[in-house]
């Protein structure tokens, strides 16, 4: 009735619901005191650099209102940049400037904005407009990601990123998120971005969904989504798996972008990754999560061993 799935069927397919995620995984495997490691992107970045995990380069940070003007000197040295709130969530408050010239600043959307616009945006970040709970925040400036041409024609404006769920250090599921016109250049699935399920063993597309419906081609560019195969998949798995040691979180969402020059970079970590990845992969998370929960190990396996396990068993 009303297009509802039967509970029994969902359970038999191992689909995880929000309540179960919250109680049985996030509350159980994610120590609350470790949350700042991922909720504060500046902290994540420093931590990643210490662990030798590749991340987009940090150009600068603004902590106080009168520090805003000082960063323009830094900005002018770069072709493009990205301004983010350190404690933002869900992609809120991210400003991407792809080109700076005499006309002003060119946003990723093609819009041309002036110096004051940038200042206001940073002021909003500092006031806590984008942060969780509205607490005062820090603005961070990152080098622009020159995304890998393999994804050309796959994304409307925004950078396509790969979301992996890493459970106790094992990457269990992956999804490529493509911005669309409908999602306004954002990679949020519930806003209409396309989610492409990626086979965790090979890096090849398995299925794609938009608005909960199966799609085969990108709605804006018309590119066939089934052709997608992420190159050097093992490196990506290793990168995501290594975020476990770095963050200490047992149930982790890792967002990775592919940079033309630097290869896979960790964009951000998420202590409460969403469940849409199950729809994109057309399978539930639970069977893999339970398999890893039941692993009997003498000593904690290292990153390589975990990736080996994933490639052999899933």
């Amino acid at each position, binding site marked *: 009735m*009303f*297009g*509802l*799935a*039967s*509970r029994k*069927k*969902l359970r038999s*397919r191992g*689909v995880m*619901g*929000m*309540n*179960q995620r919250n*109680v*049985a995984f996030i509350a159980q495997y994610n120590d609350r005191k470790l949350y700042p490691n991922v909720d504060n992107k500046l902290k994540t970045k420093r931590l990643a650099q210490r662990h030798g995990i590749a991340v987009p380069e940090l150009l600068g940070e603004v902590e106080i209102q009168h520090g805003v003007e000082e960063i323009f000197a830094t900005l002018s040295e770069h072709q493009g940049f990205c301004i983010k709130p350190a404690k933002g969530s*869900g992609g*809120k408050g991210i400003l991407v400037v792809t080109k700076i010239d005499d006309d002003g600043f060119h946003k990723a959307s093609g819009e041309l904005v002036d110096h004051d616009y940038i200042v*206001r945006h940073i*002021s*909003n970040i500092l*006031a*806590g*407009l984008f942060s969780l709970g*509205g607490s005062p925040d820090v603005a961070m400036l990152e080098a622009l990601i020159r995304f890998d041409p393999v994804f050309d024609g796959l994304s409307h404006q925004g950078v396509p990123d790969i979301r992996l769920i890493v459970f106790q250090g094992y990457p269990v599921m992956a999804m490529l998120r493509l911005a669309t016109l409908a999602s*306004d250049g954002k990679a*949020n699935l*519930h*806003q209409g971005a396309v989610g492409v399920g990626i086979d965790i063993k090979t890096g090849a597309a398995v299925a794609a*969904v938009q608005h*909960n*419906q*199966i799609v085969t081609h990108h709605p804006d560019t018309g590119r066939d989504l089934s052709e997608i195969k992420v190159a050097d998949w093992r490196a990506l798995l290793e990168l995501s798996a290594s975020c476990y040691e770095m963050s200490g979180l047992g149930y982790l969402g890792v967002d990775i972008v592919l940079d033309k020059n630097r290869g896979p970079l960790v964009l951000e970590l998420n202590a409460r990754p969403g469940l849409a990845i*199950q*729809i994109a992969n*057309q*399978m*539930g998370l639970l069977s893999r999560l339970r398999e890893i929960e039941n692993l009997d190990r003498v000593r904690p396996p290292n990153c390589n061993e975990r990736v080996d396990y994933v490639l052999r068993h899933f």
Partner: protein
Amino acid sequence: MLLILVLVVLGVSHIFHRHVNDGVPLTPGQQIAIWQVEAEITFTGQGGSVTATFALPNDPNFELIEEFTASPAYGVSVERDDENSRVVWSKREASGRQTMYYQGSFKLARAAPKPNSETPPEPVSIPTLAEPYQSSAEAILALAVAQSGNQQTLVTQLIELLDSENQNLAMLRSRLSRTETFVHLLQMAEIPVNLVRGLQLEDGRRNQSLIPLVRMYVDGEWMLRNVELSSLDEALPLLIWLEGRPALLDVEGGENSNIRFAISEQRISALQDANQVLQGSEASIGLYNLPIAEQNMFKGILLLPLGALVVVFMRVIVGVRSSGTFMPILIAAAFIQTELLNGLIGFVTVVAVGLMIRSFLSHLNLLLVSRISAVVIVVIALILLFTIFAFQLGLTEALTITFFPMIIMAWTIERMSILWEEEGGREVLVQGGGSLLIAVLAYLMMDNDLLRHWAFNLLGIHALIMAAILLMGQYTGYRLLELQRFKPLSE
């Protein structure tokens, strides 16, 4: 799990205690009857010292609430012991007509006393009547025994014989009243029997006297029968005033004594009655001892757990998204003041107009704190404006819009506006609609008379709500809306 169990036990036992021991009714507006019985005692004093002893009722089916006596210059004492209660008036010198009053208020006892049927009392041996009455009595009894099979039918036969034209009966009745005859015959038949006198409680009756009744032990239980010609109205409660044969009134030093009863009925709220009992007791530390203003405040506050229950249910079990976790409860609390329709129209209008003005404010590029402060002022201005308009148009119902918490409205507008900019109008409708849906459901719960009554007067309900919330907090199954969301996965 243990905690939930403890909470359930605590809640249920508290409600049980409040209901059974304190008599707090389970539904609001329940009333109980209070019977005011006034006995007017008159006699003529003979000029010497006078002692009037008036027996008081000792009926386990009734509870005495309060009593008064009134008498001109008499010393009064009320004596109570397990067996008898009485009021004694005394005066050194009294002559002429004396009048004194006793007034008692009674209500039906909550806990019905156990039927007094443990051990059958021994039949008392009675003095034989003088002849020819004794022979007559024996003849009647023999006749009744012959026509009956057991005690039950014997009693029926005796009552029938009382109404018959029997010669022997006429003989007895020349000396004894109907009831006395009946009692005597039963005693001869060795049926334990007691003469009692009771008062029928009917509102507005005056000049009543006690009605003689027969209480007898037949087939293992006590039963009460009226054998007088004036029949009892079974529907009216009967207050047993005297049991056995003590005198109702005993006047020493007076004559021509007379007693008249007047009865009036009062109806009071059962809740009020229960709380009066509580206040009278020593352990009267509680909600009802607070000043009325504080009590009224708690009447509101104690509704919030109901709202919280709705929020938890809608979010955890159904999966409705709302903007702000507990904002819906605050909106619902405001709805209680404004009535639902007024509240809904008022809230949606203020938020909609507020959103428009907020979109203008976002062009000014203000810092967050000042922008929200500006929105607060805008909300106040809007509410003021609406109220003035409504008053001019004579829409007094719309005046209640002032009950909405302004800061909450301002935050709602701010949050909705950011949501609009970042996630689009659809998300605003989803979350705004979700909030209103939860608010309306919470309002319907919080405005329900029965639930309001429980929330304030039977505090144990809050332990039950807590248990339900804890229980839902452990629910790891699918939310109702997830069944729709994950539909593509079940195919």
